[in-house]
Every structure is written in structure tokens, then in C-alpha cells.
């Protein structure tokens, strides 16, 4: 299912983009639906799409060598995930599974990277948003780690 720039305007992640830039993103995007317990991608999968959660709740986690899934946290509506799709080696650092029926915006990351390289303003905005997501993920992980250390 395709989407247009007005669909993107409703999502906080896409704040600050110009109309033209939103149209570009919409052109690279599609909407995908996932059922409960459906895996969006596995840890170590090669990724080619950057995702933003539109509806539902997802679980993000890592797998141990024993193949046991460790659930680290939930992804909430409006959040970006699968940032590894934008950076070499494009390998996922975690798995993501739907825990409710979910609707996701999938952005073609190869085409997005070409646009990032070609348009400085678009590239800066996009990279800032992705960096902020990674920064929050890192900060939350430290917070979680310190919580565990105190126990």
C-alpha cells in the first residue's frame, strides 16, 4: 500500500521536513501490515528498509547463542527502528516481532541513502533524526544496565 506526504505529516518523526521532502519520502515508502507474533526481521538479517511504526506495538530484542529470544523493550507508535538499514554493513543488531497487529511505514533505504547523499538539507535532517533515535536507544540501554547493576 502506498502513502502520500499528508500521511507522513501526522507522524512526529517526519516533523521539520519540507513539503517537497515529504513527497520524496512518501515516494520511497510503502505501508506494510504484520500479524501478532510475525517477525519483521531477525537479528543479523541484511536490511533494506528503514521502518517507522504507524500503529500497534512491536517487541525488540536480541537472541543468544542458545536461540533464546531476550525481549529488551517495546517499540511504540511513531518510533523509528531498523536504523541499520541505512549504515553499512546493513546488518540488523536486533530482532523485531509484532506483539499486536501492526502497521509500519517501510522506506527503501538504498534509495533513501542516495537522496541523503544528493541533498545536504534532507540528509542532515534525516541523519539527525536517526542519530537521535540511536542516542536514545543507547541512553535507555545504559539506564537499564545501571538499574540491573543496582539490583
Amino acid at each position, binding site marked *: 500500500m502506498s502513502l502520500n506526504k499528508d500521511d507522513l505529516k501526522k507522524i512526529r518523526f517526519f516533523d521539520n521536513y519540507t513539503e517537497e521532502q515529504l513527497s520524496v519520502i512518501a515516494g520511497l515508502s510503502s505501508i506494510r501490515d504484520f500479524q501478532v507474533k510475525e517477525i519483521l526481521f531477525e537479528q543479523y538479517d541484511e536490511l533494506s528498509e528503514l521502518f517507522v511504526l504507524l500503529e500497534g506495538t512491536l*517487541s525488540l530484542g536480541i537472541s543468544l547463542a542458545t536461540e533464546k529470544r531476550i525481549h529488551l523493550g*517495546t517499540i511504540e507508535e511513531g518510533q523509528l527502528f531498523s536504523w541499520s538499514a541505512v549504515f553499512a554493513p546493513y546488518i540488523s543488531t536486533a530482532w523485531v516481532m509484532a506483539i499486536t497487529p501492526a502497521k509500519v511505514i517501510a522506506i527503501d533505504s538504498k534509495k533513501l541513502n542516495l537522496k541523503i547523499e544528493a541533498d545536504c538539507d534532507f540528509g542532515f535532517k534525516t541523519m539527525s533524526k536517526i542519530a537521535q533515535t540511536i542516542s536514545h536507544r543507547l541512553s535507555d540501554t545504559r539506564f*537499564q544496565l545501571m538499574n540491573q547493576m543496582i539490583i
Partner: protein
Amino acid sequence: MTIDRNIYKPFRAKLTDVIEESPLIKTFVLVPEEEFSFNTGQFIELSVDGIGEAPFTPSSSPVVTEKLEVTVMKTGYVTEFMHNLKPGVFMGIRGPYGRGYPVEKFFGKEVLILGGGCGLAPIRSLLYALENVKDKLEKVILCYGSKTPSDCIYKPLFTRLNKIEKFEAYRTVDKAEEGWNESVGVVTTLLNKVKINLKNSVAVVCGPPIMMKFGTIRLLEMGYKDDEIYLSMEKNMSCGLGKCGHCMMGEFFVCKHGPVFTYKELKETPDIWK
């Protein structure tokens, strides 16, 4: 709103009910024998004859004066003894002491509240106070985190808050258990989903030091100004009167100048998160 009385002298209060909130946390319902009132965020010294006393911030509504609720986590000698008390016994109350939440300053604004663990106790009192003046507020959002669903206190509170106009409440746990269908992750992850007008908002943070540190950092990152973040420090308080120095934090006595401070007041103070 406080009543003129000898601040050094405890008065009696009858324990009428004990509510188990989580394996380590209980709420004690007390009926004071003297007229008593407090401002939300102020604290009291609660004593058990022959055992000792400890400071607690009431978790009940400041508007309800006939009874008082105090939520206590079992952490030491006095609190362990308290956890074994049964309704019918008498306890001592000194106070109220300190500076609570400046609720009037929240009028016309959106209030974002971040709570963790037993830090929800003072926040519950604040929520009751805000509910009482909700017509003067734009919105109240509570984000609360606990270690596990079993550690989450005041479980019915969240359902209730989500039914009140202008109120929203979200919960998360560090580690989910069977049947949990809400968020998983530290409390700051909930900030991804709240919609708040930062130009007209204040934030309140209360919880364990680590949570307060990471919560405050994230709020600053979101765009809150130093004087728009209220921190309920509640640590190391002992005498409650600014005499013993136990709670001294830089130039402040937490018990006397706080326990509620703005981040602006404390940001130059060393080791505020310890």
C-alpha cells in the same frame, strides 16, 4: 493550608488499614487524632513507639484531611517493623515539613510527570491535587516505570486516570511477566509516545536517583528549560527540620528547602543524583 502546631512534637494517628501494593511496598491508612493537613509534596515524620521514625511523603489527597495515606517500601529497621503492623495500633506523626509542589505554577500548562518505583507515592498525592484543579490545567500525563509488573504499585490508579478528562497514564516495566500487554523498557522510552506542547509545559520527576538522572537528561533534550523541571529529591532526610545536616546537598537541606526543587536550583550542586 498547614496548621499551627509544635513542629517538634508528634501527635497520635490510628492505623486503620494496611494495603499491600507490591511484595516490598505497603500503604498505611492513618486517622490523625488532631487536625492535620499538608500541601502535596510536603513530607511527614512517621514514628513507631520504641522503634524509631522515618520521613515519608503522604501518597493521599491533600484535600482529604480526615485520613492520611503513607506508602512505605521495606528498606530498613523502621520500615521492616512497620510492614508487620496490623490495623488498630497507634503511630506518631510530626510535620508536615518542607516545600511541596507549587501547583499554582502549573495552572494553564500541560504537566508531564515521570515516576519510577516507590516514587509514585508522592506523585499519587500530586495527581489527586491536580485532579482537584483540572479545570485550570491543560493536560496531565503520567509516565511510570517499575522493574516488573508485580512491582508496579497503585494498579487501579492507571485505569482510573485514563478515564479522567485531560489525564493520560502510561506504564512500562523493565522486565515483562506473563500477561503483561503494556510497554517494556525504561521509563524514558514512554516519552517517545507522549504528545506534549513543550512551549507550555512543566515536568515533574520522582523516583530512584538513576531514573531521575536519566529522566531529567531526556527532558532537557526534549526542550524543557531548567526551571520547568521539578525534582522531588526525598533523600537522606532524617530530622525533617534542617538541624541534623544528614540531607545536606550543596547549600540546601533537602528537608527544609525541598524536597521539591527545580532543576535550575540544583544543577550546579555536586552529586545530586547519588
